[in-house]
């Protein structure tokens, strides 16, 4: 199976802190990978390096088995990778529709925006994500939304572009049970259409439920990788995680 993306021995330092230490990770086509680890393990740093927001101090990044140089957030999106960042990456004073299309606006030649089309698509996505409040329309600023609704906007943005790889950094942590289920259904649909997901979560039951493979990160190092066949239950996964982290 070919890889959509691969990190090889990537190191990332912030001043004195080594957030990633020779970390390697790959995501294959049609695969759902669960990335787990404690707070501060380096999960968010890893995905930001993966999508070109941070440039690594050492190591390399490969896209569809091709090494990339000068990797940027824009290039990652153009390569078919969409991310729901942990901080959601929204602009609160701007409208929902501008946030959904941020950085990837639908345009006419010369860069003028297809406003009607964007509004229609945004309204469709809002319905698909299932916003509860009837007052919400695509014109209202994101700053007026609740935490869960803002998360919905970030997820809608990632959905819209039909990406080959969708990276979700704790996508469910502000959502109700009902909405969480919707996110899982979405992840399963992505898999069905042979696309990939890299899922970060603190809830081991959730991660176990949807992932095909697990990567355990501890203090910037990938300490264990295992497939679903290696673990019988979420409890076992939790035990493995505890043991490897203690040994490490």
């Amino acid at each position, binding site marked *: 199976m070919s890889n959509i993306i691969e990190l090889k021995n990537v190191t990332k330092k912030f001043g004195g802190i080594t957030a990633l230490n020779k970390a390697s990770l790959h995501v294959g086509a049609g695969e759902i990978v669960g990335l787990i680890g404690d707070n501060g393990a380096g999960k968010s740093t890893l995905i930001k390096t993966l999508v070109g927001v941070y440039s690594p101090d050492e190591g390399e990044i490969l896209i569809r088995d091709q090494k990339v140089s000068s990797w940027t957030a824009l290039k990652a999106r*153009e390569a078919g990778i969409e991310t729901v*960042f942990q901080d959601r990456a929204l602009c609160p004073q701007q409208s929902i529709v501008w946030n959904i299309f941020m950085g990837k606006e639908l345009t006419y030649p010369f*860069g003028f925006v297809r406003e009607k089309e964007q509004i229609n698509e945004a309204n469709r996505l809002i319905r698909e994500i299932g916003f509860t409040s009837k007052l919400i329309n695509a014109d209202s600023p994101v700053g007026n939304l609740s935490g869960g609704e803002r998360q919905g906007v970030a997820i809608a943005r990632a959905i819209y572009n039909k990406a080959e790889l969708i990276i979700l950094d704790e996508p469910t942590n502000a959502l109700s049970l009902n909405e969480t289920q919707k996110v899982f259904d979405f992840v399963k649909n992505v898999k069905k259409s042979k696309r990939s997901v890299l899922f970060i979560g603190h809830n081991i039951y959730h991660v176990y439920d949807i992932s095909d493979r697990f990567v355990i990160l501890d203090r910037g190092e990938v300490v264990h990788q295992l497939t679903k066949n290696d673990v019988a239950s979420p409890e076992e996964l939790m035990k493995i995680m505890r043991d490897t982290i203690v040994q490490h």
Partner: protein
Amino acid sequence: MNKESSVINKIFHKNGRAFGSMGYFIILMLIFLIGAPEAWLRPNLHQSVFVMMPTLIFLVIPLVFLVASGEIDLSFASTYALAAYIFAILVKSGIDPALAILAGVISGAVVGALVGALIVYGRLSSLVASLGVLFLLRGLILVLTQSRSITMMDELENHWVYHLLVGNFYGFPMQMLWALAFVIFSYYLFNKHVFGIHIHHVGDNYVSAEQMGINVKAVKIKTFMFVGLGAGIAGIFTTLITYSFFPTQGFGYLLLALAAVFVGGTPYWGGLGTIAGAVFGVGVIAYMEVGVIAVGMSGVWRQFFNGLIILLALLGHRLHGDRVR
């Protein structure tokens, strides 16, 4: 609530800041009209506003873009003079005024881009760094000209480009039409074009903008460049109107232009801005400058009233609420 009134409500809500500035402009005009109706009907009063308003518009509209992007610039007041100076020496050396105008405007844009690059790549505070550039460029002009003015009456008076840019169109000053075209162009650029939309995102939350693949540095440099371009256009229009370049040109517009941005309803914190509001902001400032004298008060009152109106306008715009996060 019926549908029609909800649409009107929505328009008011979305453009509250612009309507606020329009309100100040109307109130100011009414005060002057009631205070000195005879002076108000004299055409020469409006004539001097018609010189000042286009100049301010070319300066203020790009500043709205810049403030919305989360930055500020002071150097434009010197860029203005530099562009005018380059235009003047080229005209004096026998180059066709139309080409000299082009060269002057381009030099304004280049200076703006350089200021932007200095601030973005040097990671400097735009307030302080552009203050430095303001003095540096003005100093350079004073040294180069030895404080001497340049008059170009003979070269410009009968040239087609003079009539095209600052002549009369059935009695209406051409520069007002160009300023209007600039406003319309800028409105679409700011609200309907990816450039303007990215400016909103960058000024609102540059970390988010960066994560979504927007090239924040490039957006900022281009915005500074637009400010330089506007300053260049402003400098050349004024020079054309008066047929002359003088080395202190533009300095007086520094604070007036900044005042017009904020009186116009663009908040200082970035992510928001209003082009229509800025036009009314310019109207307020321009009429303020001539109006105080027109109503028969002594010129010494002018700054006092300028200050008063800036403060009242800011208090009024506070009604539009705080920054949402």
